[in-house]
């Protein structure tokens, strides 16, 4: 077998191990789903009338507000799911099993790749679950074409990959699972200060840069554009740049941390 196919085989083995963990202990994944679901229901059913009144300048229209917040909620779901990746990487590192992996003649990166692919698959599953709930309470896309759906799916996967690499780095940098969970909290909190729930230009002027210059806002705007037909403008490129940048940074950071010697 060639080196590449051996690497793929090792990564696949590691992926199966991580998926087995996730399947056997689904509570972590499910707990992480609670935050976006709660926020979705809270903002639609409790705050919905007021929020939507401030949105379009017109009267209260709850269905318009559902449409507005679902893209943000979906990306927030990804932010939550990758916290699980940080926690499971940190847990793994405290166990002797990773030291054992290091003494095997396997592809070095396969341990991390297994975590990343596993976490991206979990993100996709979580997004599908939350998306289904959104559709159940009335979310409809505004005649998105097949290509737009495909682009939306691609963006979600790319975004999940980027955040997962960052989360894996956080997991590696943390001494234990609790620390990893704390360190990854910003990934859940960032969407709250993005354009997920209200448009950035309705925020106080001093705060707008904070909302604008972070990965969630361009990604949310792009997703909104693809699913709801609002203007995307520069946000499409910005979102892709953020994703590629974060993924690359997270990858370099993670592999450097993983290859460092643990005295």
């Amino acid at each position, binding site marked *: 077998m060639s080196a590449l196919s051996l690497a793929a085989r090792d990564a696949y*083995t590691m992926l199966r191990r991580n998926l*087995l963990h996730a399947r056997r202990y689904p509570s972590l994944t499910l707990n992480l789903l609670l935050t976006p679901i709660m926020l979705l229901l809270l903002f639609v059913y409790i705050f919905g009338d007021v929020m939507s009144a401030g949105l379009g300048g017109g009267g209260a229209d709850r269905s318009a507000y559902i449409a507005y917040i679902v893209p943000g909620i979906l990306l927030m779901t990804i932010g939550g799911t990758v916290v699980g990746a940080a926690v499971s990487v940190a847990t793994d590192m405290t*166990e*002797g099993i990773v*030291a054992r992996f290091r*003494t095997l003649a396997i592809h070095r990166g396969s341990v991390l790749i297994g975590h990343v692919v596993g976490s991206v698959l979990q993100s996709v599953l979580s997004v599908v679950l939350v998306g289904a709930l959104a559709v159940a309470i009335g979310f409809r896309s505004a005649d998105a074409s097949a290509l737009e759906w495909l682009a939306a799916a691609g963006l979600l996967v790319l975004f999940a990959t980027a955040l997962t690499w960052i989360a894996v780095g956080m997991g590696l940098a943390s001494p234990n699972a609790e620390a990893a969970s704390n360190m990854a909290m910003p990934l859940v909190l960032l969407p709250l200060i993005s354009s997920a729930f209200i448009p950035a230009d309705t925020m106080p002027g001093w705060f707008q840069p904070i909302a604008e210059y972070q990965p969630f806002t361009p990604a949310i705007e792009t997703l909104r554009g693809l699913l709801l037909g609002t203007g995307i403008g520069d946000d499409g490129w910005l979102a892709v740049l953020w994703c590629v940048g974060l993924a690359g940074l997270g990858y370099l950071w993670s592999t450097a941390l993983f290859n460092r010697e643990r*005295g």
Partner: protein
Amino acid sequence: MTTAANNPAIEAAGLRKSFGEKKVLDGIDLTVPQGTVFSLLGPNGAGKTTAVRILSTLVAADGGRARVAGRDVVAEAQAVRGAIGVTGQFSAVDGLITGEENMLLMADLHHLSRREGRRIAGELLERFALAEAAKKPAATYSGGMRRRLDLAMTLVGRPQVIFLDEPTTGLDPRSRQTVWDIVRDLVFEGATVFLTTQYLGEADELADRIAVLHGGRIAAEGSAEELKRLVPGGYVRLRFTDQDACRGAAVALGEVAADSEALSLRIPSDGSQRALRSLLARLDSAGVEADELTVHTPDLDDVFFALTGDSTPPAPPTPPAQPDQPTRQGRHTEAAR
């Protein structure tokens, strides 16, 4: 991947490693022939684990060279990894999945076919008495079971050289015995075992060659017998009920170490039948009778204390399988270098 039959399994020269200011290894030379058990003996913190980590490619040495299974541990790390199996001091099993899944995971990582993987996993689980618990999560295993699973996982790839870092620390006597049996089997099957331990009895029991690690250096190396010869020989200890008898015996026997308060004499002796008979004859002819006679042959404890100049025993309160020997009060502290 052929290694000439006469090449040593492990060869190290001048290994050095420091962590910050702390010098852990300060020039270690080792040669371990194939098919033998080599034991690195030392108290906690002596650098045993660091030596294992260097030889098993986990950390790089600051200086020196090492070859394992004929390959350089730095330049040919991946080839070394293909030839070794490592059981670290801390359990290296995945507690979230079952024992069987752990074994199959190892089979996959050794790129065995599904069938071959299942066969070897089943065989090893059986051999390590884990077949019944195979379907239970490893986290529910007892300490002894985890250790056995750990060892079984190490053997999936049929390693030529096996590193066991304190494999019996924290185990009950029965599990310890099991591990010893496994080590003997492995060597019988042709593997080379590099074992670290803080139990002198364990090294004595298993190892063909023993190196005592002290202060980052090898203080002594040899077979258990050779090491025992490094300390002054054995002695016979005579105890008397009264001062007169003790004094009388001391006069009759000539130059002996007397401890008048304990009413005892220590006579250098190899403990052989002939030596004892001559000793008794001399006592008889002097008309003195000893109250108690004990023969003390040097054991690894003596060697260890003599070499390390350490008065605290390295073994925990319940050392394993100590052979019946006189108490340690007759220890030759003057034997320290």
